[in-house]
Structure formats: C-alpha cells, structure tokens
C-alpha cells in the first residue's frame, strides 16, 4: 500500500505514501525522540538490517545504524567500494547474494535514480530508500517535517522556500511531495537551469521564482539545498557567482518572518550556499535535524518491519 513495487513494506519514496501513513510515521518519530538515547529497545530484536551504501554517506548511514541499534536490531554496513561491485558484479547479482542471506530489511543508497525501485521488483525483502540519484530521499523529508512540526506545530499553510539546485536534488523532490500533501505553500527557487518549468506540475501548491529575495519574503521555513556539482553532467550554473545570487545571508533572514527557521540536509558548504552567520544562528535547525533523523529512521524501520 505504501510502496511502488510488489513488496508491501518498502519505503521507496514519499510520492506513493498517503498522508495518514506519513502522519503515523511522524507520530512514531515523536515517540522515539522522547525515548532516552541510552535506552536500548527490543522492538527489532533478532532482526538483521543491511545498510547498503553505493555512495559515500556519513550522516544518513550513521543515522540508520544508530536507529537500528537502538531498536535492538543487528546491522551490517556495506560500502560499495568494499564489495564485489568494484569487481564488476551487477547490482542484481549483489542484491541476490545479499537476499540469499535473508536480512529483514535492506537500506540502500545509490547514485542512480530508481535503483531501489528496480531492485524491489525482484526482491521480497523490505527496502528503505536512503537516497536514489536525483529522485527521492524519503527519510530526509520525514525528518525535515518532524523538525518543522516541533517548532511550528503544523505544515498547513506554512510558506516554505526551497532554495538551490532543485532538479538535481532528491531532498527537494521528497520534500516537495511531503509538504504538498500537507497543504504547505511552497516556493522553489534556484538558478533557471536547475529549476524545471514543469516543477509546479509535480504536486499542488508549488510556485517558482529565480529571485531569492522573492522566495524568502515572508517565509516561515527556508530549506537550503546542498550544491552538488558532482551530480551535474555539465556545469549548469557558474559556481563562482552562486553564493551571490542563491546563498542565504542574514539580509535574507530579515525579509522572512521574524520567527522563520532554516533547514539544511547537510553537510553544509559554508560560503557556497549558506553564510556562517546564518548556519550558526538560533534560526538554524541543522543540529535538530540530525537528532530527528535518528528518531524518524527508528519509526521507518519499525514501520517496514512490523506493519
């Protein structure tokens, strides 16, 4: 019911998950956040979770690992460079091998959009997408929602500015879907070469601008995206002047609502997309996002395993 493949318990993207299920996940996230971090639970005791990361990742991988351990599960972390993938084994063969070992959940990050969707067609093991190419990063959107809700209480009617390289960003795509489902008033902003004119057709409530000042005006939430030059086939904007037009500074904060908050999926590039003054200010929720990441991933692991 919440997956796009035949597997009934995968989390492949936010797009296919109905709002009540997301609310349930957020509720469980809040529940797990209240559990003291040193308390080890038995929710997933005896279960094994494979964390399969085909792209370098520190925070998402660690976050999933901690979440699994706090739920009492056994985790096996596999980084692509340490596997037979570097020996030319195909993705399908690698996954078949892992599946034969019967883990209870596979958490996967991959540089290709749709890689987990492709695999889930052939696997009967629940899969959690920890980021696929330029497509989706569902747990990031969930932890962002949890972070916003803690401060604002609701997503409905909030003015949310998403700023950066929208079209190459899986974080943006998952957030656009989630925020739209909850009735937020979203404005996407970035260099014209990275923001598709079709973006408003993705989901209801999405507006477009190339002017950062317009995007942040009266915003309740400002979501900054990491500039990911490695995901671009060609240089789609001159990076030397990126900060000048799309970097978040204190001046922008003055245009936003007085209680506006700033989110960033990390790791931040100081002076590339966000100034140090903003990153280190009280309005920055960056560390709170990291903390919520563990709680929401506990909720997601529970959700795919015990549904």
């Amino acid at each position, binding site marked *: 019911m919440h997956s796009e493949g035949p597997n009934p318990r995968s989390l492949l993207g936010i797009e296919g998950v109905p709002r009540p299920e997301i609310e349930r996940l957020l509720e469980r996230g809040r529940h797990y956040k209240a559990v003291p971090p040193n308390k080890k639970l038995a929710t997933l005791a005896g279960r094994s979770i494979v964390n399969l990361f085909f792209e370098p990742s520190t925070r998402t991988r660690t976050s999933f690992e901690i979440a699994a351990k706090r739920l009492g599960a056994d985790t096996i972390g596999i980084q692509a460079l340490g596997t037979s993938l570097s020996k030319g084994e195909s993705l399908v063969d690698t996954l078949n091998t892992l599946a034969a070992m019967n883990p209870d959940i596979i958490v996967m990050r991959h540089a290709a*959009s*749709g*890689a987990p*969707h492709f695999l889930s067609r052939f696997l009967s093991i629940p899969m959690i997408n920890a980021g696929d190419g330029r*497509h989706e990063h569902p747990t990031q959107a969930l932890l962002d929602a949890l972070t916003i809700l803690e401060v604002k209480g609701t997503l409905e009617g909030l003015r949310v500015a998403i700023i950066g390289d929208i079209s190459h960003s899986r974080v943006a795509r998952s957030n656009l879907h989630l925020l739209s489902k909850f009735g937020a008033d979203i404005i996407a902003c970035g260099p014209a070469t990275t923001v598709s004119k*079709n973006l408003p057709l993705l989901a209801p409530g999405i507006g477009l601008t190339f002017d950062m000042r317009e995007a942040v005006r009266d915003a309740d939430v400002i979501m900054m995206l990491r500039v990911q030059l490695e995901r671009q086939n060609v240089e789609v904007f001159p990076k030397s002047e990126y900060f000048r037009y799309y970097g978040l500074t204190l001046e922008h904060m003055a245009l936003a609502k007085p209680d506006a908050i700033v989110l960033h999926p990390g790791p931040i590039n100081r002076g590339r997309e966000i100034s140090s003054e903003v990153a280190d200010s009280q309005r920055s929720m960056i560390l709170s996002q990291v903390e919520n990441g563990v709680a929401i991933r506990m909720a997601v692991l529970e959700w795919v395993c015990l549904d």
Partner: protein
Amino acid sequence: MRMLLKNGHVVDPASGLDAKRDVLLDDERIAAIEPSIESTGAQVYDASGLVVAPGFVDIHVHLREPGIEHAETIESGTRAAAAGGFTAVCCMPNTQPVNDSAQVTSFIVERARRTAAVHVHPIGAISKGSKGERLADVGAMRGEGAVAISDDGLPVMNSGLMRRAMKYAASFGMTVIDHCEDLNLSAGGDIHEGIQSMRLGLGGIPASAEDVMVARDIILAAETGARIHVAHISTASSIAMVRHAKKLGLPVTSEVTPHHFALTDEQIPGYDSNYKMRPPLRTGSDVTAAIEGLVDGTIDCIATDHAPHTGHTKMQEFERCPFGVTGLETSLGLALKALYHTGKVDLVHLVRLFTNSASSCLNLGRGELRIGGPADITVFSTEREWTYDAAATLSKSKNSPFGGTVFRGGPVATIVAGRFAWTAEDGIR
C-alpha cells in the same frame, strides 16, 4: 512450387486494388491475380476473412550481426521479422565492425543469403566507423548491395560532413537516413524531458534535440537537392517541419516507430528499461501529431527500429541500460490498434504505410503486387485476437514494452519468394 491463395481480401496500394481476389504464385513470382483462379496443380490455401497484401517492408532494424550475435543474428532477427509479417528488412550499420566498407556489406549480404528468413538490405554507414569524421566507402558499399547510408545511433553532428554525405550519396542514387539528435542537447538524458523525467529524477532529452537536427537536414536537402529520410520521427515540431518541407517539394521523407505512436512518456511504468529508447517516448500531443502525420502522408511509413539487447544489459540501473526496444513482432498489431480500429486510416492506407510507401523512401522497388513480380506476400487478420508473449519471441532478445498486450488483428502468414517464411499457429490452411 505453385501456391494459390483463395478468396482473400487483396489490398495493393500501388495499383489501388482493394477487393476479393485469388492470388496464384508460381515459385518465386506472382503468376496471376484474378477474381477466381482454378487450382491447377497448386497447393491451395483458404484466405477468406484475411487480408492478402504485398510483403511488408521494414526499413529500419538492427540485426546485430556481425559482432553482437548474443543479442541478435541475421537469422534470428529475420525470423522475428517474418513473424511480424515482414518480407524484407533494411539493417542499420551499427554492428561490430560498423558496416562502413564493401567487405562488411558483402558479409551481411552473404550471411543473409545463407541464413535469413526474409530479404535483407544492408544500410551502410555515413562515416568511417560512424565516428562522424571521414566519409565511408559509400560507392563501394552500394556496389555490394547497400541501399542507403546512415550513422543511426551515432548521429553526424558535423553539418559540413552531413552536407558532403548527402551530395555524395545522391550521386549514387542513395538516400541519407538521419537519426536526428543533437548530442549536446540530449547529453545525460534518459527519457523525454518533461513532467515524467522531473518526477522520476531522470535526465531529460528535450524535443529540441531532435528538432534542430530535422531543421538542419531539411535546410541541407533544400540546398543540395539530395534525399534525406528522417528516421523515427518523434516530435510534433519535427513532423510540422517535414510537412512544410514536403509542401515545398523538397526530397524529404520520414518514418515513425509503433512505440512512438502507441505510447507516451507518462506511460513509462517506474524505471522499466523496456521503455527506454532514443528518441524517447514523447508526450500525448506528439503522439497525436505522429498519427496525424501518418494519416496525411507527412510520415511516409512505419518502421520498427527493432533494437535487440540481451537481458542482462537491460537488467541494470535505468540510466545504465542501453537504449532501444524490439518491435518486429508487434508492429502490425500496434498499427491496427492505434490507426485502423480507431478509424484514423482505412485498410489501403494502413497497408501502404508498411509496403510501397516504405519501399519508395529508399527506392527499394518492393511493396507491390505485380504479375511477374516477386512472390512476397503478407497475409494478416484485422480481427483475430492474440496476446504478445515477449518471452516466446523469435528474436534473441526480449526487450519489448508490449509483453502481455492483447491485440485485435495481426500477421497470419508471411510468404517470401513463394514459400512460407512463417505462419501463425492458427494460421492458414
């Protein structure tokens, strides 16, 4: 061997024949087409309820031989062609090695003579190795049987080379077939640039990648007077430009594939690489334009761009999968579905798109029923229901998006040089 097809609905667009007739084949030639022929020593087949048409011609297929025989061979590809109702195919030169010389052309002709189920006409490369640098041995390939030239799949970006190729090929009476794609505009793209590419986070191939090259080619055709054929046209703008070019009397022709008039980008299910091809599936309005183009003659013919790829190459991350789908066996079924049963075209026009109109794009001299002409016949039904089983294909590759599709009407028997090259299970008796 004499063969008599009784009581078929004979459709020959070249002569305008559209009536119940008997057709007598005497070995490799058509002996007679009459309202009633007595069976003097001929094997008799009952074609009542069936359409008897000139042998279908597919001017755009990839047979993968030499060099990529694990995906297809001339034998397997032509067996699939016969099962699709085709009696002749033109094979693209992107083999290994590339068909850019007399030696490769004659190898293909010789292999076809020994192993092919249908007639095979090789298409030579435009440039050596299809590298877009130096002209291939166009005249020598012509001498060995190449019918046209193309750097299909590796389009010529250098307009100067394209202009020279067109002038040079024209002097040998050959058409240049262009896979119109500006590689700078399509770089990094996997599917059509639109809502779906944005939704799936896949690289987009904009319509402009095709349109600018179609515009270029039409301009060059106008300047040189040489014949250009636009392969697998896919965008409304390109179709409009070809329509305009034809109005001006320019020597421009075009083809469309069944998947481009049957499917849109929004119908791509998830990340299924059997829907990944170049040009990519376009939008609903492009599909509408393609059908209009087929109806009004802007698009001369249907060609499959049959592009076999083995299973493991298509079983990868979407962006790593090669472009291309098979199409020989489903082509007629899709045309009946999208064009005939919807009332867009009548039977004569439908047959024309597969026969003489296809043949004339490359001056093949095929696709008509002529007394004394070759006994190449396609017998098909407009009504018989059947389901396409991609796993049971006669091709060596199964990369079709149409597995499981239920069709109304399709090929029943394919006769090449007076003999059955293929018959359906519930075929003809």
